[in-house]
């Protein structure tokens, strides 16, 4: 198949400026010869127009249709389709607008746009601000067990306080990024606590002053349900009680789930997928041609 991608000389392609190049690149990767131009090419099997809101003088086989909210854009899109092009819409919404304007469904197709796949969810930062004690009252070793339940791609740790070196070493060995501030400093606290996604406290010694700091900074808390933690109305976002490791891991995963679900909504909206879908449409179109 020989695909010729047409982009306008004049007119603003807007956010779709990279589409012709990306489509050409991925078609080439699939072994399809793809060329770029500003007018249709007679020798091409498929002339595909990516014009954004701009039009095209010659006839094309397929055209990207987007943003038909204005009367001008709608008229241009309908004109293209009436001249024989298959309108490849970016959304069902656009398809529906064209259908209402009288375009037959057979003259339209749907291919969702693509993203570069480079932006990924950042790591959620779990903050700890307490020093450990020899009697183990802060239950710091639980943090290692919690880390074992988590994915280092999604979470990182920031710890302020003495006595965490061994725990930090163990967590880092599991692939987590850990920022450890050995010495407590109020100034440092002011700068780091507001950037925590969660404040975590494992101890069962009536409460953590860091818990109050975290709340003052509006940070969500995962803390033991004990002591004065219980006296702050709505202060505990996720309580830790009888089964700390399971409870903490469950809270963190629940908090992360929404982000992952959102990210998954466009996980397959990639350039390879975008290109393959076009190729399927063009193959079907060529098969129908006399």
């Amino acid at each position, binding site marked *: 198949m020989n695909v010729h991608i047409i982009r306008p000389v004049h007119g603003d392609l807007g956010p779709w400026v990279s589409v012709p190049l990306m489509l050409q690149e991925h078609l080439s990767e699939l072994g399809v010869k793809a060329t770029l131009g500003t007018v249709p090419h007679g020798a091409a099997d498929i002339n595909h127009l990516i014009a954004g809101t701009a039009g095209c003088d010659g006839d094309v086989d397929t055209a990207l249709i987007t*943003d038909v909210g204005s009367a001008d854009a709608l008229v241009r899109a309908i004109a293209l389709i009436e001249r024989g092009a298959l309108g490849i819409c970016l*959304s069902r919404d656009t398809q529906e607008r064209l259908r209402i304007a009288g375009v037959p469904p057979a003259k339209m197709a749907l291919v969702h746009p693509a993203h570069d796949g*480079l932006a990924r969810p950042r790591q959620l930062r779990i903050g700890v601000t307490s020093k450990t004690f020899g009697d183990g009252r802060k239950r710091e070793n639980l943090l290692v067990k919690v880390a074992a339940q988590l994915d280092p791609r999604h979470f990182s740790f920031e710890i302020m306080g003495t006595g965490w070196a061994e725990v930090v070493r163990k967590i880092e060995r599991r692939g987590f990024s850990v920022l450890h501030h050995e010495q407590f400093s109020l100034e440092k606290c002011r700068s780091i606590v507001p950037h925590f996604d969660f404040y975590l406290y494992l101890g069962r010694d009536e409460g953590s002053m860091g818990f109050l700091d975290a709340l*003052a900074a*509006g940070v969500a808390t995962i803390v033991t349900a004990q002591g004065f933690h219980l006296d702050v109305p709505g202060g505990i976002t996720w309580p830790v009680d009888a089964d700390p490791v399971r409870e903490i891991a469950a809270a963190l995963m629940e908090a992360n789930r929404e982000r992952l679900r*959102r990210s998954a*909504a*466009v996980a397959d909206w990639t350039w390879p997928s975008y290109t393959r879908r076009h190729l399927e449409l063009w193959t079907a179109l060529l098969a129908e041609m006399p």
Partner: protein
Amino acid sequence: MKILPPLLHIHIVCHDGVIGWILEKFAVNLARELSLLGVRSTVGPGADPVADINHHIGGYSGEQKHVDTFMVTHVDSLKKLHRIRRLTRAAGLAICMSRETMERLHAADVPRRRLCFVNPAHDGVIQPRPLRVGMASSSAADAAGQAALLVDVAAQLAPGDFCFQMVGPGWKEVSSSLRSRGFAVDDSQREFSGESYAKIVPFFDLYLSTSEGENTPGFLEAVAAGVPSLVTAEGYRLDAAGAISCAIRADPAHIVAALNRAQLDRQRRRAAVASWTWAAYAQKHLDIWARLRGQPFASTHGGPDGVASMAEAAPLRRRDRVAAFAYFHTRPLTWVDYGWTVSAIAGRALPRPVRRSLKSLVKRWFLGR
């Protein structure tokens, strides 16, 4: 209006064991705030026999003299429980740090009239960071289209609550306008590139686009990065199930409401501890001491702690007693605690004379008396 007890001299006994620890901060801050309330306050390692009130922080050994009140926290062993019982028997009032500890001590047979609680305080110096609102435009014209709306929106927001990061060309004027209103603005990324998106977009707290139609660069990247989006519900954005966190209209009031909703949880958390200040901490103590001395006081903080917690409690339930017994007898941290635990558990099953002998033996073995 607060009624201060007259001629009160509060002496805070800061025991050696707490110097350099968080409890020393309690002593220092309490003394400072009492002074600001017009009360003479001193801090020292030992009791002051001429002070009106000796309030002990840390190291509550049962042998202390001049114990009017003492701070109680982290009661996790029988040894500490025993000391608290002894101190309260000697007329001291135990000021716990939480309702839970107060109720647990009551269930463990510390007289309720000798118990109350005052929640701790925070320094009030840590503020929430502003939420980062990210925007992107593909062209100067598009940015200009959104700019006027954004300026209207910003006029109704607090600069401490939000900051803005723009990607793309054409934001210069709106950035200046937002900065002049006190907002932090980063518009240094004028060009689009996959790399810039990958570095910037995941750190947005919210992605905002007031553009209508399908011309919303950055939306897909924001969604791919898991960033909540506030966008108009149009075009392909509707096809990515769950990708729109909040559908907005190009109406300033609607957008302001959506942005404020996004930080509601943060505000609630902050409000929950807004009154947990050192000033309130000192006032609550002052009210307690005034009441102890039969002086007039006015509780102005309105919380459940402080004087309010000195009220008579409901009768103890058997299950509270069992829970307190289990708590103190199943937390052996030292050999002394372990000895108490064994004796207490074994003691319950033995006849009274044997129990007495066992108790005396345990005292001699583990406490040396």
